[in-house]
């Protein structure tokens, strides 16, 4: 068993994901993979990459759901999902070797791959399915919040954000300190009614999701308006009067 940090700075780095603008394009998914396969720990491998059943490990995936409300047409919601860096992370406490841990200084949940025995308990414990066993390396992979980018002196300062945030074309992903109520991300969560994913699990996720804003249904009635007929009292009369005013 592994303990959660007893001392913390109060800093809770995480992501705010806007379900109102996510178009499900997978940019975050692929850019994450290309950054991380050459980055933290073992590569994100692909088994049978050109074969009949290709399977790779990914740290972030997009799930697409169809919602069918009773009083409105069916709609699609794109739902990007990666580790939520929970405050009460069951994947940490379940780890038999201490490989899975949460950093006291910023709240990021990581796997120390040298200590990981690939038992897979953490993936079972995670209610979000946010961890994946690498099919070739047999080591547990998960979102690192790009810990090798966000503090990296070799990158320009503006690029010190997770790869998924840096690349998202729809600006649906935001990165910051959710432990600081005055941070941009905390304000965004407050303004937009940001939500925890499955709060009943008691994991206290740091990442937040912003809900889609309400849609206009096709059946909403138009306003009453006066319309004109194509005659001298109607449209043609209006036409001449309007032209005179120009």
């Amino acid at each position, binding site marked *: 068993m592994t303990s959660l*940090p*007893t*001392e*913390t700075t109060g800093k809770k780095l995480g992501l705010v994901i806007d379900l*109102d*603008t996510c*178009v499900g*394009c*997978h*940019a975050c998914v*692929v*850019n994450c*993979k*290309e950054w991380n*396969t*050459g*980055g933290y*720990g*073992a*590569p994100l*491998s*692909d088994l*049978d990459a*050109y*074969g*009949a059943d*290709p*399977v*790779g490990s990914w740290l972030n995936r997009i799930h697409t759901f*169809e919602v069918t409300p009773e009083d409105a*047409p*069916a*709609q*699609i919601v794109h739902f990007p999902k990666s580790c939520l860096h929970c405050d009460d992370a069951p994947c940490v406490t379940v780890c038999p070797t201490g490989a899975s*841990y949460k*950093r*006291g200084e910023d709240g990021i949940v990581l796997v120390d791959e040298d200590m990981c025995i690939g038992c897979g308990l953490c993936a079972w414990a995670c209610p979000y399915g946010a961890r994946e066993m690498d099919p070739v390396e047999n080591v547990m992979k998960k979102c690192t919040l790009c810990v*090798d980018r966000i*503090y*990296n002196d*070799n*990158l320009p300062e503006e690029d010190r954000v997770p790869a998924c945030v*840096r*690349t998202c*074309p*729809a*600006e649906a992903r935001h990165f910051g300190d959710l432990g600081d109520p005055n941070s941009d991300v905390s304000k965004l969560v407050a303004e937009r009614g940001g939500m925890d994913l499955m709060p009943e699990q008691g994991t206290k996720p740091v990442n937040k999701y912003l809900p*889609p804003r309400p*849609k*206009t249904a096709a*059946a*909403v*009635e*138009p306003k009453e*308006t006066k319309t004109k*007929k194509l005659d001298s009292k109607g*449209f043609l009369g209006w*036409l*001449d009067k309007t*032209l005179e005013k120009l």
Partner: protein
Amino acid sequence: MGVHDRDLNKSPHVSDEVRKTTCYMCACRCGINVHIRKGEDGQPKVRYIEGNRDHPVNKGVLCAKGSAGIMQHYSPARLNKPLLRVGERGKGEFKEIEWEEALQLATKWLEKPRQEDPRKLAFFTGRDQSQSMTGWWAQQYGTPNFAAHGGFCSVNMAAGGIYTFGGAFWEFGSPDWSNTELFMIFGVAEDHDSNPIKLGLAEVKRRGKKIIGVNPVRTGYNAVADEWVGITPGMDGLFILALIHELLKMGKVDLDYLLRYTNAAYLVIDNPGGADHGLFARDKAGDILVMDRKTGKAAKHSKKGVKPALQGECKYARGKVARPVFQLLAEKYMSDDFSPENVTERTGVPVSQIKRIAQDLAEAAFEKEIVIDQPWVDMKGEKHDKMIGRPVSFHAMRGISAHSNGFQTCRALHLLQILLGSIDCPGGFRFKPPYPRPVPAQPKPHGFAVAGKPLAGPPLGMPRGPEDLLLEEDGVTPQRIDRAYSWDAPLSAHGMMHMVISNAHAGDPYHVDVLFMYMANMSWNSSMNSRGVMQMLEDKDENGDYVIPKIIYSDAYNSEMVAYADLVLPDTTYLERHDCISLLDRPICEPDVMADSIRWPVVDPATQAEGRDVRGFQSVLIELGARLGLPGMTNEDGTAKFKDYADYMANHERKPGVGPLAGFRGKDGKSHGRGEPNPNQIDAYIENGGFFEAHVPENAKYFKHANQHWQDWAVEMGLQDGPVENVFNLYHEALAKFQLCADGKMEPVAPETHKERIKTCFDPLPTWYPPFEGEGIDEADYPYHALTQRPAAMYHSWGSQNAWLRQIHGANPLYVPGAICEAVGLEDGDWAEISSHHGAIKVPVKRMDAVNVNTMWTWNAIGKRSGAWNLDPDAPEAKKGFLLNHLIHELLPPKSDGMRWSNSDPVTGQAAWFDLRVNIKKASDQTGPTAPQFPAQKKTKVAPVNIEYGKEWN
């Protein structure tokens, strides 16, 4: 544990060098930073690709495709060496040959038609991003038979726009994202253009403004839109014209804008049966007339002080009668034909929604007017204190254009924009440089091939009217192999690549000697009737010779088309090549920025795989041009004028001072737009991040179609040589001329066979008519619509060999509306048989409700031929993926007279992919694979099993 508990290198080495170039994972052409790091073998390897923050197109972001560039570059489907066919066509059996042998062979095959009949070379270049060069090459060779893929892509969108207002969406214009109050997007499936639209949607959302998505399928952009219009395919024109009907009835049109910038007041001759019916009334000097409101008399439209009428009837020139365009327009669109009540059933859009959206448009345009304090002067010399905008914007792409009524539908959408006064104003649609560029500023098409001589001008262009058709002396027979610019498709501005193989096979209008293609998967997902096309490429004549005698093909990967080539010229990947994204071609500008860019070899192919011996296609083409002695590519002493494409990019001049790249011109590299060639130009681009940009002056940013400052700047920058008048064509006189040809009143007279459809479809005012395929079948047999859309994470077939992208889209189910599933008894995972008038396919089914109730759909070009792209023959792409192409014929169902027409728009020749009508039933055999299946294509290389990319750096 404490706060600082474990050792962790938080600043690991990222890369040895960052090289900035241009993406080619789709047609968006974003700027990318390619991080290069030494690999295990000591050679430079791609560590990471990210968006270039400084680049005007993507401003730093990068999509899934762009982010998967590493897997594209190192794909095991890459071709490494020129290939000569040794087995029968279609099998994929080749031997590797040296470049010298390949070039000698190609030169020999190309030499004969050039000397005898240059039309016998059909040179079509698919998803080419170098058309200004490949088109120029065709011109120098002397064949009119050149085009890229526009004819089967979105020519209706380009032609509909350019003929109407001298611009179009995507490359030629975009919404004013930062000022618009209401944005409507029609028929765009997450591409064209990819990242700028996503950035724009984010901006509109951030500003809290409304987005309306019009699309039969509610995925992607339509999923995040605030309102969805689940339209029935092919009915967009009817929906748009109903919006216009409502706006006119509310009196919500911008009359001042119409008078200033359009032909609303031009007088149209009313003389049914006469040779001038439908033409503009002109005085003896040829000036177009309007009716003076005060006097009721005709006056020159350009006369100072004349106040033109928009309604009524004008008698002029001895009893002739003419009426203003706007009068005809109001009569047409205010009629009950276009009332919401009369279109609701066909469009699938509720009356309430049509009326409310019309009100939303009117409210945003006229009650939320935007004023920018920026004085400007128009081309008539009138000074304006401010720029006043109607902040309603639109975008549309293939969904509305890939129909046989697409040209008129695109025109209808632009008419809507113009009536609202929202073209190139704050908050509306904005031109991107070098546009606006109306038809008079575009080249005409050129034919009339002469043995051994270049064409008089570029093969492709914009005909002004019937006089510019490319017909033989009989006035009927097409000059071009694809029948472009003939009566079949008079305004086929991008050619008709989808007809080339079937016409060449049929010898109609003639047979060819050589089919030379680049980057076009014509034996698979880029053709209608793929199985038929494969057969045509394999067919032999009575002598045992192939009906299409020689096929030369260039591609970077072992695509389905490679198997049909006699000679394969292996192209580089996009990270190994020179390219110019030129203003002479398909530009990458943004409304405020004139820009162009390059690709350059950020890695050397020789270091990227053992035995890799590939050359960029454009360099090969230049060398072939020199070997053939083509003008422009050969010096007087017969030697090659350009060493390679890079040399051409820097030193070719299309006219004095204007070349493929606009930036860093002049000997010192300090001139922009115009200037002498700069031998160090490519280096200057590399130093600048792979692109060049110049910012449009503040007073030239809007109303470019009529803005004197814009005209001056455009001339200074070499975009045009003088002022260009741009009158928006609500009514298009060229279309009226074609109607007169169909009536036998104007030369050349249209053939009997074509008269009726020209009269119906060439309405000078935007119109709607039912899509052709639906008219040719019994609706009871094929009650449903079927279409494809491109996923955001895959670009055509290119992505299929990409180890990462194929894990996202490796197979494609058919998404079937819930009501149809229930009616037919289908559940998720079932197999269904889909049939059309042309054929049947077997596919896996997935139920979906967020879709038009009569429309089933799937992702585009996921299905692969077994073995192609060096994938396992049992890959999901081959066994669970499929193409709708097998249901779509290049010809329409036979008519009663036995004629079979091309399945294309009758005006532009655009392939009518989305007219497809189908039926569906549960398949009798509920096991896979998908059908049809084809014998496996032979692999050119064995792919690795597993990938652990980047392991050496961990």
